[in-house]
């Protein structure tokens, strides 16, 4: 593997295999398509285009999936008059990946107004991906009918009450959580006591070495509470996940990529396939951000996730739709 300049970060001050400065550097680059891979306990960061030149990271990826988010089917305002074609561009991007994903995760705001035809359009567009399975969790725009009836009709069949569920793929445990129902006035996202109890029971039988991936719409960490970018009771869920050696939390809602690492938990938010939103506090409100037409697709994207057994952190790669 070629080595140039700053690509390899081998500083390990704490002798725990975690290169903290490297993590921060990775996070700063994440929005522009950076692969952060833990190999042999050492964090390496590679620019996405170089990674594609080299092919796979060392060690075949055992499990590969793609996260998309916030397709907002039905949105038709100036920020993006054609969310259908940008979702199709995301599908093209998925189909062009060097390793075909086994399934897709959609982290919510599938539709803009919870309408049946909007759910149907997204379902239909996603059948064009080479991967057949799509797992969804709802965003607040998917449950605007109050009790989420339309969403649950589409995606609640194999789920617990409220739409939460869990499943396993190749020894990795996935939890799909719903934090957009029964929200209180002035509040943030909410998991609720019943769901937290269910999470506790769901995780009980797992060994601490089981990699866990949690996906939910609203971020499970405090990105920017003033704009509702956080979940009130996420700390309680994270306490239940504390004993696990590798936890990845995948969220949407904020329409931009962001990463945070806390101990053995990596938090990551995906870009939208519909429209971007401003960075925290950089605008009066978190609404759709209008940009010149030629810049739009650079701010929309997909997230490719690869799991290599024996490595703590999943390789999470964001790429835009350009």
């Amino acid at each position, binding site marked *: 593997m070629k080595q140039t300049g700053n690509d390899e970060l081998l500083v390990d001050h704490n002798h725990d295999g975690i290169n903290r400065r490297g993590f921060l550097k990775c996070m700063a680059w994440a929005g522009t398509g950076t692969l952060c891979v833990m190999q042999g306990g050492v964090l390496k960061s590679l620019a996405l285009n170089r990674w594609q030149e080299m092919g796979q990271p060392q060690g075949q990826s055992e499990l590969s999936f793609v996260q998309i988010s916030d397709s907002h089917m039905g949105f038709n*305002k*100036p*920020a993006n008059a054609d969310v259908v074609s940008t979702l199709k561009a995301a599908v093209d991007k998925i189909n062009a990946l060097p390793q075909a994903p086994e399934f897709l995760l959609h982290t919510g705001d599938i539709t*803009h*107004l*919870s309408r049946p035809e909007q759910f149907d359009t997204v379902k239909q567009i996603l059948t064009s991906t080479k991967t057949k399975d799509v797992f969804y969790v709802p965003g*607040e*725009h998917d449950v*605007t*009918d*109050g009790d989420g009836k339309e969403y649950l009709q589409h995606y609640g069949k194999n789920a617990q009450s409220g739409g939460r569920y869990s499943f396993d793929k190749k020894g990795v445990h996935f939890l799909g959580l719903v934090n957009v129902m029964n*929200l*209180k*006035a*002035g*509040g*943030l996202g909410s998991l609720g006591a019943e769901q937290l109890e269910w999470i506790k029971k769901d995780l009980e039988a797992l060994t601490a070495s089981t990699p866990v991936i949690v996906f939910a719409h609203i971020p499970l960490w405090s990105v920017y509470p*003033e*704009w*509702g970018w956080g979940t009130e009771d996420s700390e309680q869920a994270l306490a239940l996940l504390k004993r696990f050696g590798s936890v990845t939390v995948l969220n949407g809602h904020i329409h931009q990529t962001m990463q945070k690492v806390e101990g053995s938990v990596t938090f990551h938010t995906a870009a939208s396939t519909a429209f971007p939103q401003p960075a925290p506090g950089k605008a*009066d*409100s*978190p*609404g*759709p951000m209008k940009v010149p037409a030629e810049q739009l697709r650079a701010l929309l994207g997909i997230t490719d996730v690869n799991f290599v057994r024996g490595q703590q952190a999943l390789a999470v790669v964001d790429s835009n739709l350009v």
Partner: protein
Amino acid sequence: MRRELLLVCAAVFLLGEAQTTGGTAANGKTNQAEVEIDNFTFAPVTLTVPAGTTVKWVNRDDIPHTVVSEDRRTFKSKALDTDDSFSYTFTQPGTYTYFCSIHPKMTAKVVVQ
């Protein structure tokens, strides 16, 4: 001739005014007020009205919002897209805190006297 014209114009003007004011009618029973939703904000944030007022919320934002009373029962609109509206008549005095159930950080209140 001109004075008559002036008087007619004045009369028409005054009649017109009475019809479009949307304020207190002759018997003082019907009141209307409006709340504008834009930039993730209800404006005015506190609306004070007499009992019997019909409040109309209009969404001017480029994102949908709802108008839901804090208890989620007293009044609850469906999702309002841009230019959609929702009305509710407040018959009982009191303070009614409400929010957008899609973006719960958006809160406001109607004070009914």
